[in-house]
């Protein structure tokens, strides 16, 4: 299993539609400060529901994730996974600014579903908000700095 592509629409600094293909092996993402590298990682965390708004650097809530480059009130990220048996798993998350706040909707293989369904599906593939498979900028030493108990609890989860 691996990420096959990201389709980003109006999320953070990605105004309009962007499609980023991903291949197997080792891909490096590079570019000047402020160009949008961490925002790509944020796309993945957002779509899979692995992070809170605060962790995605949107202090005033999910509304700050919608691009300020145009007047649109919605944003979405669609992650396509290539599964080992040629099949695909697609997780999409859309947010929309309404008069009652920001609504967030999840889709699995383009059918609306709940956040809990997304979590339990991803858990089958060892993707959880605690798995250290995503390390955000500045957090690499967190595992060394956290308490011994927290570190052991991490092993509990994978045992």
């Amino acid at each position, binding site marked *: *299993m*691996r*990420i096959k592509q990201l389709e980003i629409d109006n999320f*953070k*600094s*990605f*105004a309009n539609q*962007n499609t*980023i*293909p*991903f*291949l*197997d*092996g*080792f*891909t*490096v*993402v*590079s*570019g*000047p400060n*402020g*160009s*949008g*590298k*961490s*925002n*790509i*990682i944020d796309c*993945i965390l957002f779509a899979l529901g692995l992070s809170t708004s605060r962790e995605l650097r949107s202090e005033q809530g999910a509304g700050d994730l919608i691009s300020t*480059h145009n007047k649109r009130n919605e944003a979405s990220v669609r992650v396509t*996974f290539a599964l080992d048996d040629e099949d695909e798993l697609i997780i999409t998350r859309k947010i929309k600014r309404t008069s009652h706040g920001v609504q967030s909707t999840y889709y699995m293989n383009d059918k609306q579903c709940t956040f809990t369904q997304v979590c339990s599906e991803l858990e089958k593939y*060892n*993707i959880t908000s605690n*798995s*250290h*498979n*995503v*390390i*955000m*900028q*500045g*957090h*690499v*030493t*967190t*595992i*060394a*700095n956290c*308490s*011994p*108990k*927290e*570190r*052991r609890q*991490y*092993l*509990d989860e*994978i*045992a």
Partner: protein
Amino acid sequence: KKDEFIKTFNVVNQNFKDIFPLLSEGEGELVLENPSDPFSGGLVFRASIRDKKNQKLAAMSGGEKTLTALAFVFAVQRYLPAPFYAFDEVDMHLDGPNVEKLAKMINIQAKQTQFIVVSLRKPMIDSADRMIGVTQKGKGVTKISGVSLKEEIKQEAG
């Protein structure tokens, strides 16, 4: 439950012992604070880099903590791989030679699993299979400037 845990711990610990010397010129192991009742205690790193005796984890340098933390992540990956790894500038505390060591390690691990690594450091960029360039267009809009490097070269080489 305890048996399951001990079994997992032993495998991950062995992985950690194998991987740690590859990342740093040192030795490391995982130690349970209370081996007879693991759930009442925590898990600590016992590591010594470049012949230093009994290093306290808290006193380690930024680079040393980085290598210790990543050795643990890779040790767990070998036991139970996630489908992908996304690292955002994990090499920021590392000196040149250690960036190279980490890049080599990622290359080995990337044979099993997909790695997406944001980096500004040349040794890391040079050792990847391919690079996704990111730039800013106009008033702050992100533009992906293409997927380049070894992939195209490999294809051209036929």
